[in-house]
């Protein structure tokens, strides 16, 4: 097992005007599950393919452990692309399906048997080794396919949107299986997805990319509680964080008729008269005080049982602004009503209106 290091790794496509991956610096610790996430075209798959050796690295280096693999062919990198090919062969037993690639690689018979048995134990397939794949359930077949990668005992597992072909139910099941298996195996894993929920539920740490640039890397909690810029703030979390452009006031920011207190150092960091504030739906509440908060017209309330989400709009300095707030699932306003919403004071994220960078300290709970 080993760590993975992207050291200023850059990928420029021929004829491209900007780098697909621009000076990526990222360290994945030994045994860590790192998720690369971002919208389509952000460079996440390109980064993974650079690590796999499928994409040329135009500048910078990639290391697996202490070994510089920048110019090493894919098959000599000691990595496994999981689910790259998940075909199972019908006439071969589960054991053969898991171990045949080792035979091609010239691994001795005893060693093959030992590794297959070890993987089968991990995957709860020990009792099925002599069965044919068609005698297995869908989930068991999937585990055999994982077994094919595990018996190779690679230093790093790579997974590129492995769940994208599965239906919603199987996706959630498999997500849990992959995450728990990775923890049991302790093999360094780099996982690519465009789905922030997948990223939040699976990763030890998450790296968010946009336009080939690393935006932020941190634990799911870091990213949720302390997004370093407006992009990460809006990308992580569902429903998304409300991002509003508001005026600065003495000792805080204007939120409708209230001033939400913000530390002086935070405001001192900007010269502009406005700021972008971010507030998560769960950090907004309805107030009965007619002189407080922001007047919001309710467009829709989505009831989810205990909770509900209020979707509404407000007028902020002449700009129609949409908002989402979490409300009680049983007692809540209805579409067409106007309510006053206020922000829990220490749950406010403040960003520079120009650069989009975070100004405020982390949210304290």
């Amino acid at each position, binding site marked *: 097992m080993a760590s993975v290091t992207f050291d200023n790794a850059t990928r420029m496509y021929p004829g491209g005007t900007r780098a697909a991956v621009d000076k990526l610096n990222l360290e994945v610790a030994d045994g860590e599950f790192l998720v690369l996430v971002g919208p389509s075209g952000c460079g996440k798959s390109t980064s993974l393919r650079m690590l796999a050796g499928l994409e040329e690295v135009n500048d910078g280096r990639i290391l697996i452990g202490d070994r510089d693999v920048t110019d090493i062919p894919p098959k000599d990198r000691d990595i496994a692309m999981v689910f790259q090919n998940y*075909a199972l*062969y019908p006439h071969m037993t589960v054991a053969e399906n898991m171990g045949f690639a080792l035979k091609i690689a010239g691994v001795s*018979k005893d060693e093959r048997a030992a590794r297959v048995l070890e993987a089968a134990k991990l995957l709860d397939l020990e009792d099925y080794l002599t069965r044919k794949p068609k005698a297995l359930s869908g989930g068991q077949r999937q585990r055999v396919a994982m077994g094919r990668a595990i018996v190779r005992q690679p230093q790093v597992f790579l997974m590129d949107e492995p769940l994208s072909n599965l239906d919603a139910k199987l996706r959630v099941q498999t997500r849990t299986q992959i995450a728990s298996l990775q923890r049991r195996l302790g093999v360094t894993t780099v996982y690519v997805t465009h789905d922030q929920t997948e990223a939040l539920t699976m990763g030890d740490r998450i790296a968010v990319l946009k336009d080939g640039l690393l935006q932020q890397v941190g634990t799911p909690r870091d990213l949720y509680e302390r997004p370093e810029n407006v992009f990460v703030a809006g990308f992580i979390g569902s429903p998304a964080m409300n991002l509003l452009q508001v005026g600065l006031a003495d000792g805080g920011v204007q939120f409708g008729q209230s001033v939400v207190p913000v530390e002086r150092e935070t405001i001192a960091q900007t010269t502009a008269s406005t700021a972008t504030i971010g507030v998560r739906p769960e950090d907004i509440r309805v107030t009965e005080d007619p002189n407080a908060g922001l007047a919001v017209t309710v467009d829709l309330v989505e009831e989810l049982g205990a909770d509900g989400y209020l979707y509404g709009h407000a007028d902020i300095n002449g700009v129609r602004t949409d908002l989402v707030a979490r409300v009680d699932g049983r007692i809540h306003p209805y579409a067409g009503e106007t309510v006053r919403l206020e922000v829990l004071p220490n749950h406010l994220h403040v960003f520079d209106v120009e650069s989009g960078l975070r100004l405020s300290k982390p949210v304290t709970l």
Partner: protein
Amino acid sequence: MSGSLNITSATADPALLDLPWELPLADWPSESIASLPKGISRHLVRFANLSGYVVAVKETTAEMARGEYDMLRTLQRLDIPCVDPLAVITGRGTENGDELPSVLVTRHLRFSLPYRALFSQQLRPDTATRLVDALAVLLVRLHIVGFFWGDVSLSNTLFRRDAGAFAAYLVDAETGKLYPGGLSRGQRENDLEIARVNIAGELMDLAAGGRADEDLDPVELSNGIVAAYRQLWTELTGSESFSSHERWRIRSRVERLNDLGFDIEELAIKTAEGGTTVRIQPKVVDAGHHQRRLLRLTGLDTGENQARRLLNDLDSYIAANGKQDMDEEVVAHEWLIRVFEPVVKAIPRELKGKLEPAEVFHQLLEHRYRLSEARDADVPLAEALSSYINDVLRHRRDEATVIAPPTEALDLPLDAVDDDGEPTADWRDLV
């Protein structure tokens, strides 16, 4: 059925509307199915008769069906041998309003065979070698246009007989991606490694099912694709340098490529060291050297090796009849009318589905050669023909539409079926 069935197709065939789209593929009635596939492929694939031809129908997601449809159309435009995409059908639903997966419809290639259908009892090593060689040619052609396949395998390929060899056609483009700037070495190497592992797995599976000759070594054969690929890749794309006195080497390179079945469309020639050295490198190569020549001369559209074979016969015809001074196109036309067409017309109607005409002609020439050898004298073509039809062709199966699943590999989301396999003695002997 829900009222929103949506068919996207370049050549809309109204007969497409007659298929039972409101049923899951697994439940299609037998009258809609051309032949029941024997195994299970990655996605469920079924074959159906459609106004005079057979189509393959694959259930998948709308996004993947559209992606693969577009990819196959692009590959066709790039002159890559692949299956013909016919339609994408989305918005399927049952009568109860339940959603059904989208489908991709492709046209079955006449006379193309899945590798498992290419042999009757057991796969012999020489046949396997020819399959692997054909796949290597296809992979090189795909890589030249910048296509990374991602799932190279015998299962994802169809094969057509081509005068003693095979021509390979890409069937499954689901995992593929086109890189207009060309592929990196790592991408090519990765495809090769995938090919090597998959071919070995497929051959081991045949062996496990008792369908491989005992002399067949899956590992050795699968390594063969690497060697065949590298040799062809170097010949097609490699640069060579020589002294400016050896200009004949340009011509020799062109001829070598022609022999391999390729034409050079663009050759980069550079001089260096004050004009004393010349460096050449093919920039654009096109497969089908003999195919194009035969098509131009006779209008016959055949496989590359079949074309080579027919052109050789044309050359013998010219030599034997002393027509070297005549215009080539005129003699070719004469050969077509006097030699080739009479053979094709002599094939009884009921045997026309056995093999393609050009393949019949090739086999006939082989047959005549063997007869002549046995008799130690030239056997006339007419005599060889009647012997070939009655002793050989009549006993072959029809190959025009041999249908079997493109792969018998199992996939993950499918439901399990009952085990009918007997437990093997000790799994340790198997890994």
